């Protein structure tokens, strides 16, 4: 499978360096290595979800408890989380660090991913969620740290879009 294990490791290490100790996740192809790394790490609490919106509540609980968390999801999982983001994270000023695999964008071969790709950034903008991209290993750690810093200072969700250039090798 041409999912980049190297980039996944850089992302995972960056999350650890940012003191993330709880990761909620729902598997998708680009996230398989990241989820395995979280599962193998005894210092990380991995919560495998039935649906991504649960991750909003779980991260809120972790925030109340003083534990730094991150959410791993596909952009369709972001779509499935919108009510939770608006009526919990935004309403109650909860910081969320959301790592969202940006499927359905340039280079996408799977027809079923393409509609979600069209609307992802427009929805992030409509919801007022600050976002940036993870598109090269050289800037992963800095961007994750910056996203986490902004989420915590502004007490709101912040998104990083994981791009094909970073996650897919072929």
């Amino acid at each position, binding site marked *: 499978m041409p999912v980049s294990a190297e980039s996944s490791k850089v992302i995972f290490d960056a999350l650890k360096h940012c003191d993330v100790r709880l990761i909620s996740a729902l598997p998708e192809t680009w996230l398989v290595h990241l989820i395995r790394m979280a599962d193998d790490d005894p210092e990380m609490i991995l*919560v495998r979800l*039935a649906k991504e919106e*649960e*991750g909003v*509540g*779980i991260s809120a*609980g*972790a925030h109340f408890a003083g534990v730094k968390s991150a959410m791993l999801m596909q952009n369709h999982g972001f779509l499935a989380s919108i009510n*939770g983001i608006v009526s919990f994270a935004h309403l109650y000023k909860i910081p969320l660090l959301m790592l969202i695999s940006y499927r359905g964008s340039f280079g996408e071969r799977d027809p079923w991913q393409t509609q979600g790709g069209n609307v992802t950034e427009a929805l992030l903008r409509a919801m007022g969620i600050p976002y940036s991209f993870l598109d090269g290993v050289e800037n992963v750690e800095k961007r994750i740290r910056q996203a986490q810093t902004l989420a915590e200072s502004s007490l709101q969700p912040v998104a990083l879009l994981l791009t094909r250039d970073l996650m897919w090798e072929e």
Partner: protein
Amino acid sequence: MLRLECLRAVYPELERCLVVTIMGATAAELHSLGHRGNFFYLQHAMGLASSTGLGLALSLPDQKIVVFDGDGSLLMNLGSLSTMARYQPKNLVHVVFDNESLLSVGGFPTATSTGTDLEGVARAAGVPKVFTVRTVEDFKTAVKNALDGTHLTTIVAKVEATGPAAYVTDLSLVENRFQFRRHIQSLKKSRR
């Protein structure tokens, strides 16, 4: 059985817990008994009270967590039962007040009114201890046993579809949220 009487019966036990409630009548009734800094009322995001309890329980394994859920909210996030059952936090007590109604929006019947059995759903999802209770005395006993025990427990409490006259309290949502987090951080400091 009235939800308010159930809450009153376990109110003293809640002092040692962190409590998360759903929106509407449940939040207003617990608040009416006397707000405490360890109570968080999730006044929207239906379905995520149990997820919030799970996040707290996994992050604070030595702290008892109580979630006051409802049939309407849980039916919006049945997957939460399977996620809770997957991790089985020993410190999480999940109470579901089942009034078979979306009371806060006008009393529309939920699927539990036509036969969906939340005790059965929770049991089949893998929650290790599941009970249905119909009297205040049984409710009090079930909650106390769950708090004293070491198993994830879901307690389905069959209650009447009645609530308070008003749902809005004088506690702002954001104030509640900051107070709740500060309370938890002060607990952590005092234990160090």
